[in-house]
């Protein structure tokens, strides 16, 4: 075998603390290395051309590049090999940047270590096989999980692109948080006027199947061929029959049901349609509040329903859908404001959340758009807004910025002044984060044109006083304590991962950060992909995002799916496990450890043996470590190859 070694300077990234020339020289002494050189930027066009030339000139069978992380460039160099006519798996990378030059300053030691890493790579390469990628068919349907604005956008784009889309939403209607908003920054246009038509498009699009009141139960398979089982929860109403006439909701006697859509300000009936623009516009029964379902009496809705749609005996239903790609767009939840005992959230009726305030502002909200205090229905005059409640606070485990609270608070002060010109808004803030287009102008308008008084500092406590609230805080610009008497306090609660996000991530086999937000494939270069092929992210499930960014990411995720589906077949990765049947004793250890469910036990001439489903296998190698027989081997990372590397280093 003729091996060529290329040691990259990576500018001064590597050459600054590694003698790359010496490493190349040392490499010439390794077995079967016939050519070795150092090069300025191996990944650049001239760098790659150098590799192609060397392959031809020295009749190389394999190449080692000593440079940066394979996560970025392994694919690049493999393509280079292919261009020169070699099998692309005859390539090895030694990571002498992250593992050497970036972590040590001692040039002599670094040079020695870099040499050792190259030597290990050479020994592994000597045992590489010519692997061949297979091909498999893809199912060109896509599932979007979460029907907020991000999910809606992604679903519409995919559907317009000709794909069949299944949109799964766990609430009775799509729309997400945006459907609860009154107006939206920075243009202050009506939220439901811009979202409503899109929701209707979803309902009417021939390519979209909408499952609301549904959740993903399990996910099997791999890119191109996922089997997703969806649990359609009982609505206790036959939605094929229900026309959304609302007759039942006007007659239901259980009128004290907590109103989720209105953020528990106000009540609704046990059978209800969450809001006038709901999609689908169908009634569903809240089983906890329904008198018939809890006590066996009533049944009024069934009597009045003109289409006889009520089904008290309806059960959850499981449906399985085959799709080739999945977009997760499950959004966020709001911080539980009762965790700040000093603000009295949950104890004091007129200390409310920003989303509750949004419902008070909304013409379709519980007060028909009139701002009224929950305690006595009076119109408040002095309103204090407190930002960063559940954001940027390590003490409650939320050190991150929620991104949109500065902006929606400014919006709410503007709307407040519009509704009540003689009101006064005060905003306690830490600092204003308004980096979007037209955003800083917007917060300034709140202060300068709408007279909102901004006070930089946190609030220490809120105390009831004479039917109002004493808000005690600090003005850190004046260096003074301040106290403001308020009729209403609005807490700008931050965003946290949607409930159940972690469980969903595990079903989808994607990663999530310590707070439960889904992890993108690369923070800069793969913002909508995940580390699992075929699964994409859109909107706030990846981290708090405002509407423009959520929509943009929804578009991007759809574009990724359309690009994926532009081919009819996908190449499979040959770096997967394989079982040597003679050695396998059928103990099943590999099957039980495989995190991807890629191993099944089969009957082979009357004996139980393991078998790898190659398209599911992700090449993680856990099975090879678990097998007591050494019968299951990861191609490209066989025991022999790993041992050769270890021996090179240790013997």
């Amino acid at each position, binding site marked *: 075998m003729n091996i060529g070694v290329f040691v990259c300077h990576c500018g001064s990234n590597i050459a600054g603390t590694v003698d790359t020339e010496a490493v190349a020289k040392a490499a010439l002494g390794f077995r079967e290395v016939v050519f070795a050189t150092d090069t300025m930027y191996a990944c650049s066009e001239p760098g790659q051309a150098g590799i192609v030339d060397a392959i031809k000139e020295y009749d190389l069978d394999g190449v080692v590049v000593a440079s940066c992380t394979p996560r970025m460039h392994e694919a690049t160099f493999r393509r280079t090999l292919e261009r020169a006519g070699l099998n692309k798996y005859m390539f090895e990378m030694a990571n002498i940047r992250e593992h050497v030059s970036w972590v040590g300053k001692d040039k002599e030691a670094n040079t020695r270590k870099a040499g050792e890493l190259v030597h290990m790579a050479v020994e592994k390469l000597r045992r590489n096989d010519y692997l061949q990628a297979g091909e498999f068919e893809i199912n060109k349907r896509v599932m979007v999980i979460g029907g907020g604005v991000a999910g809606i956008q992604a679903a519409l784009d995919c559907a317009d692109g000709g794909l069949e889309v299944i949109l799964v939403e766990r609430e009775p209607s799509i729309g997400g948080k945006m459907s609860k908003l009154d107006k939206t920054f920075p243009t202050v246009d009506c939220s439901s006027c811009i979202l409503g038509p899109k929701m209707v498009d979803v309902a009417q699009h021939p390519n979209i199947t909408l499952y609301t009141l549904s959740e993903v139960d399990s996910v099997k398979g791999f890119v191109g061929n996922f089997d997703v089982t969806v649990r359609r929860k009982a609505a206790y109403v036959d939605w094929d029959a229900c026309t959304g006439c609302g007759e039942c909701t006007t007659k239901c006697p259980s009128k004290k049901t907590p109103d989720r859509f209105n953020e528990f300000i106000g009540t609704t009936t046990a059978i209800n349609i969450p809001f006038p623009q709901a999609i689908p516009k169908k009634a569903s029964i809240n089983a906890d509040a329904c008198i018939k379902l809890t006590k066996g009496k009533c049944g009024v809705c069934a009597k009045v329903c003109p289409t006889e749609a009520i089904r008290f005996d309806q059960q959850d239903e499981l449906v399985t859908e085959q799709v080739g790609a999945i977009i997760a767009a499950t959004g966020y939840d709001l911080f539980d404001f009762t965790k700040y*005992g000093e603000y009295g959230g949950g104890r004091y009726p007129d200390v409310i959340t920003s989303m509750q305030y949004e419902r008070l502002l909304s013409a379709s909200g519980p007060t028909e758009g009139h701002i009224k205090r929950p305690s006595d229905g009076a119109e408040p005059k002095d309103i204090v807004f407190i930002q960063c409640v559940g954001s940027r606070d390590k003490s409650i485990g939320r050190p991150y910025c929620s991104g949109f609270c500065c902006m929606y608070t400014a919006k709410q002060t503007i709307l407040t002044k519009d509704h009540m010109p003689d009101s006064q808004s005060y905003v306690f803030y830490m600092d204003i984060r308004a980096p979007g287009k037209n955003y800083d102008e917007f917060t300034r308008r709140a202060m300068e044109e709408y007279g909102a008084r901004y006070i930089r500092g946190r609030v220490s406590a809120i*105390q009831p006083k004479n039917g109002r609230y004493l808000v005690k805080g600090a003005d850190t610009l004046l260096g003074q304590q301040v106290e403001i008497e308020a009729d209403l306090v609005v807490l700008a609660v931050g965003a946290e991962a949607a409930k159940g996000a972690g469980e969903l991530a595990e079903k989808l086999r994607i990663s999530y950060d310590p707070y439960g937000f889904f992890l993108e494939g690369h923070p800069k270069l793969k913002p909508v992909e995940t580390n699992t092929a075929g699964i994409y992210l859109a909107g706030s499930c990846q981290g708090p995002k405002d509407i423009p960014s959520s929509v943009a990411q929804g578009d991007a995720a759809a574009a990724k799916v359309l690009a994926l589906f532009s081919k009819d077949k996908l190449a499979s990765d040959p770096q997967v496990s394989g079982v040597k049947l003679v050695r396998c004793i059928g103990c099943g250890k590999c099957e039980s450890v495989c995190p991807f469910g890629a191993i099944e036990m089969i009957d082979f001439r009357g004996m139980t043996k393991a078998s790898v489903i190659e398209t599911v296998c992700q090449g993680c190698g856990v099975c090879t470590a678990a097998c007591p027989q050494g019968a299951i081997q990861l191609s490209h990372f066989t025991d022999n190859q790993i041992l050769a590397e270890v021996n090179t280093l240790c013997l």
Partner: protein
Amino acid sequence: MSLSYAYYPGCSGLGTSLEYDTSTRALCRSLGIELVEIPDWNCCGSTPAHAVDHLLSACLVGRNLGIADDMAEERKLDGIITPCPSCLKNLKTTQHRLADPEFHRKVELVVGRTLKAELPIKSVLQVVVEDLGIQALAKLVKEPLKGLKVVPYYGCIMVRPPQIMQFDDPENPMALDNLLAELGAEVLPFPLKTDCCGASLGTTRKDVIAKLSGRVLDAAEEAGADAIVTACPLCQMNLDMRQSQINRANHSGHNMPVFYYSQLAGLAAGQGETSTMLDKLCVSPRPLLAALAGHTGEGA
């Protein structure tokens, strides 16, 4: 279950808050909690020492912890308790700081002995509410405090800082609320229950006390309370003894009795005014108690 504790009365317990110490001992006796006073204890430095020098403060406390260590070798102890939150904070902070081996070594050097300092340290209130359980009070109550409207005042250090005190909710504690309700009193929600009364600034900055304690009195009045109930000798002193000073400074006219919870427990247990030392309070609770007795008399 019988509980036995090394008891640290604190110096206010033998002076300005004799009535707190006496009624606390009486309460514990009737609840079956054995108190063994730490022999030859010294002042823990109270509120000023820790502000001046952490080592000094830890050494003053350390000596007492050492004596308690010796006691624990001789007999079974469930921990160290004190009625005073300020003493408690010093005891617990010192125990916390002694976890640092370097600091531990220094304190041992100054105190001149080895220290274990491993006994759990709690306030009497915490022991009654958590270890014994509030239900235990029910047996004690013979004359429920019917009709008495009170606000509970914890002061700022009974539950704070939470990492050290590890007792109840630091923003909205309920221990005292629940205890007083069990005694039969009507407990009103009190937003200022953990605000500061001004603490030891009474000697140097009376204006601060007038502002902070005045606010507590105003809020109690506004809440419609007949009386404030405290668990801290310093809070009690600022609100009770200085009430007329505060009235003068703020042009207010408060006449609000300020009880220790242990005194009210004694009253409910039928121990009578004298043994609960109600005569030690500056704002006399007599008219209030008389009115109550008259009221219940009429009702009955």
